[in-house]
């Protein structure tokens, strides 16, 4: 093959592959345009005023995933009519949680070269109080019942040059003093009464009991544990094995969490369980599908969690005592929190 022939082939290939690539980009761009149009069968969403201290009864706040101009915005619905019209706030968050008039919003900041992330603490009117740079991709967020503490978890990948190793980083901020513990891995770990040290510790999924104590997941050596955290003593004490993304019940007696079950298919390894902290007895919920989310207690006996859906994810609900069946709560939504 002469040099000319080879160059001609290369040019043709560049043109062909270039068109395919350009086509893929244009198609994806077009599709993202569609997302800005209201989906026909979707819920009604309209802009409005959102308060984290609602005056009109109990409300459910979510990140709205329904297609339309308010996609990805924090929106509220009446707690007793979750499929009803949504009020969108104009504030976009990847993850969100709120309690007692304090909100924590994890956002992406689209930079020229790459995305960066930040955690923004919001007041009851969704006004920014303080922002913190976040080291990676947001995944969990929680506010303590009093609204004084906020916590968030991000996934850190060394970045593309360092391979596919992931780790988590969890930060806790006191909104009264703005003091930050930006990495809970620095806390002392106590396992079976003895100090434990390892380089591969990851902590994620904080759930607050009060303004000092919290629960979280600690992973090390390929296993996950439920830990009780103490902010004043800066300790994490292991309580139970095979627990991820704990969520403390309103009365503080039970923890809902995702458990890796034996025999489940490896692409759907988690089931939703509830652990009684007094008896340390765990029991499965009636949800048979794999749940990769930090569940939320709607009240003393009901759990809310996200499962993959047609538009990102839908919210489902199931009883905490293992009875009943899983039921759909609301479509095209993620990151729920109850207000009021």
């Amino acid at each position, binding site marked *: 093959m002469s040099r000319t022939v080879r160059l001609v082939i290369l040019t043709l290939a560049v043109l062909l*592959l270039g068109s395919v690539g350009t086509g*893929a980009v244009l198609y*994806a761009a077009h599709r*993202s345009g569609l997302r800005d149009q209201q989906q026909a069968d979707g819920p009604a969403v309209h802009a409005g005023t959102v308060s984290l201290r609602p005056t009109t009864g109990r409300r459910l706040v979510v990140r709205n995933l329904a297609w339309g101009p308010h996609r990805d915005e924090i929106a509220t619905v009446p707690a007793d009519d979750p499929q009803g019209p949504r009020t969108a706030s104009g504030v976009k968050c990847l993850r969100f949680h709120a309690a007692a008039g304090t909100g924590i919003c994890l956002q992406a900041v689209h930079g020229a*070269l*790459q995305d960066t992330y930040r955690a923004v603490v919001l007041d009851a009117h969704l006004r920014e109080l303080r922002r913190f740079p976040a080291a990676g991709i947001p995944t969990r967020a929680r506010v303590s019942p009093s609204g004084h503490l906020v916590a968030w978890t991000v996934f850190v990948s060394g*970045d593309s040059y*360092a391979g596919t190793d992931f780790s988590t980083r969890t930060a806790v901020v006191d909104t009264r003093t703005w003091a930050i513990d930006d990495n809970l891995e620095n806390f002392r770990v106590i396992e079976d009464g003895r100090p434990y040290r390892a380089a591969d510790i990851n902590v994620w999924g904080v759930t607050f009991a009060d303004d000092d104590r919290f629960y979280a997941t600690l992973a090390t050596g390929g296993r996950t544990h439920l830990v009780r955290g103490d902010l004043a003593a800066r300790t994490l004490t292991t309580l139970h094995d095979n627990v991820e993304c704990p969520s403390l019940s309103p009365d503080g007696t039970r923890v809902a969490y995702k458990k890796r079950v034996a025999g489940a298919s490896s692409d759907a390894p988690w089931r939703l369980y509830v652990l009684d902290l007094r008896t340390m007895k765990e029991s499965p919920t009636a949800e048979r599908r794999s749940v*990769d989310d930090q569940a939320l207690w709607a009240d003393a006996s009901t759990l809310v969690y996200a499962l993959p859906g047609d538009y990102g994810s839908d919210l489902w609900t199931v009883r905490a005592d293992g009875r009943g069946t899983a039921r759909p709560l609301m479509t095209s939504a993620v990151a729920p929190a109850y207000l009021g």
Partner: protein
Amino acid sequence: MYLADSRGTGVTAAPDPGPGRRPAAVPATVLALGAVSLVTDVSSEMVTAVLPLYVVAGLGLSPLGFGLLDGINNGVGALVRLAGGHLADGGGRRHKTVAGLGYALSALCKPLLLLAHTLPVISAVLAADRTGKGLRTAPRDAMISLATEPRHRGRAFGVHRAMDTTGALLGPLVAFAVLRATVDGYDAVFAVSGCVALLGVLVLVLFVPGHIAPAPAPATTAPGRPVPSPEPARPTLRDAVGLLRRPELRALTLCATLLGLTTVSDSFLYLLLQREGDLPAHLFPLLPLGTAAVFLLLALPLGALADRAGRRRLFLAGHGVLLLGYGLVLSPWHGAPAVVAVLVLHGTFYAATDGVLAAATAAAVPARHQGAGQALVGTGQALARFACSLAFGAAWGLWGGRTALAVTAGALAVSAVVAAFVLRPVPEVSP
């Protein structure tokens, strides 16, 4: 083959260029292979850059399982590399075929990501991608050695590594540009990455010769040597293992492994650097970029320097630079300038050792065993670094990061002294 047997290149100072000889330009084959690597790295780094985002933000999954698989992939990758090197040497003509298969396998993995929506499937695709990488590495380095005049190999590998790193730096930029244009269009990123990877395979097919005749030796080292005998039909596995009986290759493999055992993995080093230097966590992703940029800038000049000053010497000096870097991390000097200095030293270490080791290996192996020879040294080094990662992780847990680094630095110093003794210039002996 007398070519690769000829000592004097890299071991001691290389001979002066012959009278009236212009320093040879980098051979077209090396530039073609460099272009293949550049294009392929754009493709693969595009995927690696957006994969975490895709998994967490796009699919809503927790990606922690990836970390566990990484170790397994590393081990498999090292073994595949040995197989690739050996297969490629078969008959001395299969380098391009085996490398092409490796590039093609990785290229096929990109469109597969369009269909993968669960972690195990994504992990399987990544493992296949790694297999492709393992398969192609040794034959590619063998082709670079064979195509280049022995006295210019350091420079040739320098050019190749610089082009390779350019691709690695461009990849994420392209990926985020696509992501920006499509608003979270991960499928578009994978599709474009697949197209770019195919282009890389095509450049290999079109512009890399199927059989690379070893470059002519410079006139100054050739006279008096016997005419090479025709190559035996194909090297057997036994021949490949027998390579270790060659003192020079044995010495290189031993030293690469020994020094690999005391080389802290990049992620641990960056983690320590960030903690010791009190660097804000969100700047963490910039650290590997610093190393890559320095590697890119210095790969060619240090490769050329290796050709003149001796490759083994530069390989050792590179580890000396790394030792300085460790010292700096441990020193009380903190702040941005210290971090930059460590990254410069870290990048210099890569520029002085990565391509240079391949060039030194080339000189220690006969032409018909180039693939197996490159694989042997590379695998030894990769497995050793993996073992070091495991040990370092355990040491960190026991003693804390600072002490673990201090102990590793001490071990590196000892290894460097041993390596300097093992790799000392040997007197010229006629075969």
